[in-house]
């Protein structure tokens, strides 16, 4: 824009007003939909809310009491561990499978477009549909997965109802949902790599693995980083999938910070807004730390 402004041109008053008018919708949107809810959430977590004070007002300031309550709760340790396991396992599997598929579809064989479109389906389905479908598939008694296992002579696994398997089950479903996103982003990243590089390496006699290690992977690094970051933020806050499939159970075995926060706030008839908001804020802090880590890494790479 600056280049097109003629020398000596002063932004007129009307121009400034219209600039503000253009800015106003997005600012208003950010304030109403992001800043205010965030502020309310922080406020909720710092006050001692009961149902009575929630409605009538006058909740006393409690400092960090709600955070202390949350941290001291026996559910906190397992919920944090599950959140980390869920996030790391989902990210690693989604990224690996997404990368493998992206490389596969990059070869442009007949039907590759159609097949790629089919793989995108999980991404398009509403979560309630995919989560319910997975819980039918993984049902202990009537599920298709156990029926298939039975055919090859494996005993039925209590996917959703045993504390040993429930976390694994929700990870499997979440990976299935996340693969298309990784596939799409990595695939478009691959298309941005100049074909000449591959041709040159072919002339030099590089093997397929060498081509991947020395060309594809390094050139995909920026795309991979943003894919992983978006995936991380998305996965940290996955709630509906787990809630629909296991309600975080049995016995907290698939409870993550996100489902725990919901359960504290809305899970029983007597809401505990304070601790619920505190856990939600901890989750935001985790996502923020990841985002800052990404920015720092990026800055280091640029300098």
């Amino acid at each position: 824009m600056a280049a097109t402004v003629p020398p000596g041109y002063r932004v007129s008053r009307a121009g400034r007003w219209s600039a503000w008018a253009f800015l106003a919708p997005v600012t208003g949107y950010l304030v109403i939909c992001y800043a205010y809810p965030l502020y309310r959430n922080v406020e909720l977590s710092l006050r001692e809310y009961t149902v009575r004070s929630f409605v009538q007002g006058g909740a006393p300031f409690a400092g960090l009491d709600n955070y202390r309550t949350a941290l001291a709760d026996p559910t906190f340790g397992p919920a944090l561990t599950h959140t980390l396991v869920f996030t790391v396992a989902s990210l690693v599997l989604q990224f690996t499978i997404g990368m493998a598929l992206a490389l596969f579809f990059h070869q442009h064989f007949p039907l590759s477009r159609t097949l790629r479109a089919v793989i995108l389906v999980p991404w398009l389905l509403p979560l309630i549909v995919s989560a319910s479908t997975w819980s039918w598939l993984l049902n202990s008694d009537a599920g298709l997965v156990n029926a298939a296992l039975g055919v090859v002579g494996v005993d039925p696994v209590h996917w959703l109802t045993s504390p040993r398997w429930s976390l694994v089950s929700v990870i499997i479903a979440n990976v299935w949902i996340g693969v298309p996103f990784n596939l799409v982003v990595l695939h478009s990243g691959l298309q941005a790599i100049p074909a000449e590089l591959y041709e040159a390496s072919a002339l030099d006699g590089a093997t397929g693995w060498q081509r991947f290690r020395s060309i594809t992977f390094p050139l995909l690094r920026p795309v991979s980083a943003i894919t992983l970051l978006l995936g991380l933020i998305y996965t940290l806050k996955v709630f509906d999938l787990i809630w629909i499939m296991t309600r975080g159970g049995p016995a907290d075995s698939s409870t993550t910070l996100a489902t725990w926060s919901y359960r504290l706030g809305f899970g029983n008839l007597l809401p505990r807004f304070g601790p619920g908001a505190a856990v939600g804020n901890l989750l935001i802090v985790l996502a923020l730390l990841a985002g800052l880590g990404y920015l720092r890494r990026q800055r280091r790479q640029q300098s």
Partner: protein
Amino acid sequence: MTATSRRRCLAAAVATLVALAGGACSSADEPSGGGSYLVWDPYPQFADDSAWVALLRKCGEGAGVTVERTGYDTTDLTNKALLAAQQGNSPDVLIVDNPVISTLAEAGALTTTDENKLDVTTMAANLLAAGQREGRTYGVPIGANTLALYYHKEVLAAAGVDPATITDWAALNSALTKVKAKGKKGITFSAIGTEEGSFQFLPWFWGAGAQLTALDSPPAVSALTLWADWLRQGHAPNSVINNTQTTSWQEFATGDYAFAENGTWQLANAEKLGFGYGIIAIPARAGGPAPAPTGGEFVSVPVQRDTGRYATSRQLVTCLTSADNLLATDTTLSYVAPVTAVQDRQVAADPKLTVWVEAVRAAKGRTGDNLGTRYPKISESLWTGVQSALSGAKTPQEALAAAQRTAG
């Protein structure tokens, strides 16, 4: 950029802004103008052309006002009601699930019968108890439901079990064993980690003689052991841990199960089963019917800034809970009426309801015994304990000891 195009852009930007502001404000509209009364209910299944909405409209006409009705999902309604109370735009009449009453009353969101002058003298005392705290009454039951055991006639006949003999746990266990020997499945219920799970466990818990104030008492442990043993021995499917009452019913509807623990509200679906069914009361451990928890909704009058509205709200509630209207409403909902005289008329019209009416008369409110707002926490500990034991994470004894510690 020419002046005209700039002006056009400015207009567009302003228009967007107005649209945004409009969108933000429309949700904060004042709920009621002159002559219109807001009613919220947890029956989203009833559309505007249903008998329920027609009744609301008729009651509105009788009181000389128009009724604006919104149906919410049950679980949604508690939060909606709390938020509305916080923002001072509660509906005039609120129909909610009975254990929610004590929470809303604790929040100071509901009027007592002293303030709204509702007459509750005809209501059955055990049902009304769920809406009472510290001697005050916060609403009128509109209908009640409870749990009993549905059984598959042919499966029991093939196994040589007479359902009339199932009056205690020992008889039920031996029936389950006989059914299993015939290659059929035993019993299905819902032990999901929500209020539904506690609701379904309570008849066994109370039927063993346990109290909600001592979750780890020996009777309580015996009730949980009964359930855990059913899963271990294959009498109940492992899926009960994640079953809602609806998915549990779907399992029973396959025709493979001898028994299903379910509620009054499935009666209409029961008629559509492809096999003969019967209903017996849930047996207590030592015999006789176990007290089941009461389900069903209360009609309440939320606190308003303009207390002059209560008189009309009272007329609406009185109309909704008058004998004839109760009969009509409870028949559509397949509920049992909260008034003895109406219950008798229901049984006269449909003798199959006898078991249910008896079960409702023996039933207990979950928030009764002056537990009030202590109940939600106790219930959450209880369903967590049930889940721990059924999934094998803990023994029933350990699971309930942990539950009692968190319930405090």
